[in-house]
């Protein structure tokens, strides 16, 4: 097991971008390797937090949905694909509720915008 997966993926991304990419033979290959390095850096950020961010979204959305909404309490498993499936289900329901709230419930509309801001911050990538 590699401990501190995100941090160590970040080191690999840095080596790829700073050491390997410049040593390639063409600027096309260098740019391609640089893009892979950035992608790896994004994956490094996501690795540690992927389940947490999605479950935080799901719980926040649950609080915005009607009491009788049919959103499962847990994903089918903790495999990321299953967490993503529940996350997609929650977002679909949120979109429907938001459409309704815009016309019918200003307070709920504001709460959903607040959620969307928090959601974007939770998932933000910082590759600066």
């Amino acid at each position: 097991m590699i401990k501190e997966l995100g941090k160590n993926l970040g080191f690999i991304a840095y080596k790829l971008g700073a050491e390997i990419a410049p040593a390639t033979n063409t600027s096309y290959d260098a740019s391609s390797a640089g893009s892979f390095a950035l992608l790896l850096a994004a994956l490094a950020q996501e690795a540690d937090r992927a389940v947490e961010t999605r479950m935080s979204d799901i719980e926040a959305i649950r609080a915005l949905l009607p009491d009788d909404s049919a959103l499962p309490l847990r994903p089918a498993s903790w495999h990321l694909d299953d967490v993503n499936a529940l996350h997609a289900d929650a977002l679909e329901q949120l979109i429907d509720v938001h459409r309704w709230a815009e016309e019918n419930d200003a307070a709920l509309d504001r709460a959903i915008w607040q959620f969307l801001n928090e959601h974007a911050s939770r998932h933000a990538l910082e590759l600066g």
Partner: protein
Amino acid sequence: MLTQSEPILALGISAFHLHSHHNEAMTSKLEETIGKPLAGYLSRVWGIEVAVDSVSQIYGGASRQTYRIAIIADGEARNVILRRDPATSLIDTERRHEYLTYQAVYGTDIPVPEPLLLEEDATIIGGAFSLMAEIANCESAPAMLAESPYREHADKIGNQFWSLLGGLASRSPEDLGVDQFMDTPEHPAAHELAYWANVIRTDALHPQPIAEASIRWLERNLPAATNNLTLVHGDYRSGNFLYADDGEIHGILDWEMAHIGSPLEDLAWSLDPLWGNEAHIAGNLLPRQKAVEIWCAASGLTIDAQEFRWWQVFASLKGLAIWLSSAEDFHNGASKDAILALAGWVMTDRQNRILLDRISPAPRGDWAEPLL
């Protein structure tokens, strides 16, 4: 997957920016697949002896490849730029659309590379292709605008950039002749919104609550149809023009998304915060308000503030649609080019935050200034 076109993705990311001067030796693969067949083809078509000296690929979009090719034609050396569609592209190619647009604009005061040749027979080098003369000794990378000697010329470059766009807005589609091969929409804003909303709903791999809220906002605030139609570049931004180290702009590139529409579409797109590192500096060049003033002076047009706000929000939604489509292309397509995944993830993340700053009732203002 995008069907209108796919722009070269000029990612505004600096972490591993590479500006290398590699020795661009022609690889044996490029020599076999492009160099040799192209030399034979050009010799036939031009009726002179043509040899290909080198071929190097330019990094950019994955579904439309761009190459710099050094040829020797009748003993004279010259560089050309070849753009190729993938072999699976439809017959009515993006190559033809872009090539005809280059022909329409070439010779006006809007600088573009000289279009040399269009070949839609996909069997020659594995896809329809076009050739253009290279505009040499120029940069196009957005990141270079922040580096010396270019940053010292930011004002000069910015003045030209938005003056040229204003000049484009001052011409009618009929003047340029683009109405001969482009559709004229009855309601440009409604037409563009319908197109890009459909891209999002077709291509998104995961539900998009911010995009959906943005589409509803745009539907509620749709401006009236305009009679002021012009040629819209469709991807007018930093990264799609060539500039020299004295600050002169020598070429506007990448016209494959060109269409007839509202002149405000290009202006809003060029000002999107995505194209710069600072929200208030458009394209790393000029303050947004200054850019708008230059455009107005060059175009002779005045701006309806409410309509322009609509186009600014639309620009961010269109960007989001392109990034979501890139992710879909990476996920389902044959190409596993990193740039598609990077755009589909990193740019989606940033564009979502820009949209939130634009239409959320309580914007944080971290990613976009208020709409102009």
